């Protein structure tokens, strides 16, 4: 195997026929391994994906006959302010779901690495990771209680003398979207922390040791060693969390259902409402396709950055 990997060119020149046979056979067997997953993927992802594109050019209520309308659904998305507004809301959620968890995750992971390498660090990581295993629906309901007028958050604010700013956070036009964002931080911080901690554990400890012998501060360690060497992990974190922000549905659906007004409405929720409540499958599909294009447009540069670093 190592020979194959190290000298593929030499092999292909000297023993062209048997090797290419073998490669072909290996490829065939490889495909056989992939086949079951591929069939599933095609059935549950590719076919619905293509159907969504087809639906997006039609007017259809899900039951009756379909009517071809060309690009009309796409034009409607741009014309109706509420639909376009959901995309802007999604961008604001990127700040909460992505930038804050990744930034905070870096800090937390690096602190855990420096001051709490033992059992405490493990406990901290586990606690932070817990939101990943709690059903988001349950989490959304509990956060609804925490954010309510008589909820824990307002009680804490009163204790520290900030009683004047208390409000029903999820029902407030100015704050509801950010309150939803905070739930996102809570959910995604653990994921980022664990991933980045794993990254830090792969960094040669000698680097940190020598930095410490030189008397560098935590901050210097953080900026000179941790962040540059974790670029790959940061890229993965950004990719996952940005997609989570742009495609979010469950947290918003459970916490606010898009209210008050349309202050927390996001494309995922709007697609659901259009498809199943308004029974306008075509418009829902058009918005879904646009959301997908948007996600790809934003994720591709992050991926490219990531690959260059690799």
């Amino acid at each position, binding site marked *: 195997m190592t020979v194959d990997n190290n000298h593929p060119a030499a092999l292909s020149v000297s023993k062209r026929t048997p090797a290419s046979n073998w490669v072909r056979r290996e490829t065939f067997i490889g495909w056989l391994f992939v086949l079951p997953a591929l069939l599933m993927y095609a059935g549950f992802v590719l076919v619905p994906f293509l159907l969504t594109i087809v639906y997006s050019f039609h007017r259809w209520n899900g039951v009756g006959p379909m009517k071809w309308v060309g690009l009309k659904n796409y034009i409607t998305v741009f014309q109706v302010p509420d639909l376009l507004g959901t995309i802007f809301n999604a961008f604001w959620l990127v700040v909460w779901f992505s930038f804050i968890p990744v930034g905070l995750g870096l800090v937390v992971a690096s602190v855990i690495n420096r001051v709490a390498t033992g059992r405490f660090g493990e406990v901290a990581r586990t606690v932070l990771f817990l939101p990943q295993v709690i059903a988001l629906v349950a989490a959304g309901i509990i956060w609804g209680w925490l954010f309510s007028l008589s909820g824990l958050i307002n009680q804490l604010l009163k204790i520290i003398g900030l009683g004047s700013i208390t409000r029903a956070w999820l029902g407030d036009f100015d704050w509801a979207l950010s309150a939803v964002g905070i739930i996102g931080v809570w959910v995604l911080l653990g994921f980022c922390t664990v991933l980045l901690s794993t990254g830090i554990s792969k960094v040669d400890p000698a680097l940190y040791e020598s930095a410490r012998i030189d008397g560098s501060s935590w901050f210097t360690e953080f900026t000179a060693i941790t962040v540059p060497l974790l670029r790959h992990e940061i890229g993965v974190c950004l990719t996952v969390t940005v997609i989570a922000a742009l495609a979010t549905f469950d947290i918003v659906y459970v916490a606010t259902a898009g209210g008050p007004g349309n202050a927390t409405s996001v494309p995922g929720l709007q697609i659901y409402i259009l498809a199943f*409540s308004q029974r306008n499958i075509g418009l829902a599909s058009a918005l879904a396709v646009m959301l997908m294009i948007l996600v790809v447009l934003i994720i591709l540069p992050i991926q490219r950055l990531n690959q260059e670093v690799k």
Partner: protein
Amino acid sequence: MNKKSVLWSLVSLLVLTSLLLSACGGPATATAPSATEAPVVTEAPVSTEAPVAATEISAGMPTCGTDPVVLKATFETGFDLPFKLAEEFTKQYPNVTWDISQDQFANLITSTPLVLASDNAPDLLRLPTMVSFAKDGLLMDLDGYATAFGWNDWPVPQLNQNRIDADGVRGSGTLYAMGLNYSLTGVFYNKTLAAQIGMTEPPKTVAEFESLLAAAKTAGLQPIMMWGSAKSGMGLAFPLQQLMAAYGPVEPINDWIYGKAGATIDTPTNLIAAQHLEQWIKAGYFPSDINAIEYTDAAARFGKGEGVFTFNGDWQNAGYDAALPGNVGFFLMPPAEAGGKFAAMSAPLTFGIAAKAAHPDCAAFFLNWVATNDAARQIDVAVGGSNPGGPSDATMPTVASGSVTAETLAAGPVMGADGGAMDFIANATSSIFAQGWTPELQKMVGGQQDAAGLLKAVQAEYERELAQ
């Protein structure tokens, strides 16, 4: 060595694939038992002919027969009434058993079209909306049953709410659903708190009501408890529609709800109503966190004594009586001028029969039984809290005097005599509530929308949906 391991991998892959396939075969073989339910399927062709059979049936009533029947039903989670009725029905007709699935109302809106279109459609189902299902041919035409059972002679104007004409306008035409009962909405009040602000009898005009609200505010009480979260749907639509009825006739409102051509909600009298609501919001008559309050929270907070008044329907009677025994009163929203007509949102608890139902005759027989059987009517009132409707000579179930149920039942005929029954403005189109009323009323609470803008925005959404 490599080749050997590849061979082994291949063998194990084949084994794995066959295992997977057999696992996938699980559900496939599981569908086989549905073939054992073949009696249901074989009866399906009969069912598709049922409406025809029903129209020709004047000689004999449709019944559930004497052979075992499993009625497939979809009920709404959280409402005990249909479950209790089903239980009582089986007690009286032991050959009929039930296969009931249930879901939240919001989920019913989204799932009903697929459920109706499926090959395994329910016989009986709680209908969230009707027009589009009827248009798509998913609902059974009940005119034949109406003739057979004499439903058309019942003095219940609400029956018209379940009729749809050829243009897709509700209010007349073909009957597509029946009500299990007929709910009534109005103003509930906490008797102790009302006494504190000097209320000795229900207000006779909107102005009197507003002076009571102001008195409650001055006394440091919460004048009105209401929900407003987008998750529950906008509770403020309740007082708004009552104000609309107080300031204008109900017919244009019903026309709008039924989808009559050219109907508009943006009328001068509705504007006055919306302006009053806006004043109530600004005066602080509603809870400051209303946009985050769920329906159940509002009911619970009113039950705990927070709020002198609340707008709700008689389906909440049992809950209020349990939370504040003997301490909850009810009155119809007063008219604008003394001596004016009383009006109320009053809608049937709508149940329909799927066009593909396996046992439509039995389902129709059940609907008729609910309205005419004494035990069923008693359950209707005791559990559902609402008027059971039915023929004029049917006995009215007895209720405990002094209970809030007694008050709502007494209010029904008053409203009926004035011809003031309105459907809910939330029912105009399938998503006008979620996409029109709810966000716009929430904006009004947040100071981002005024009365005129509210009506214009909702009308625009209404026209957009009807144009689809």
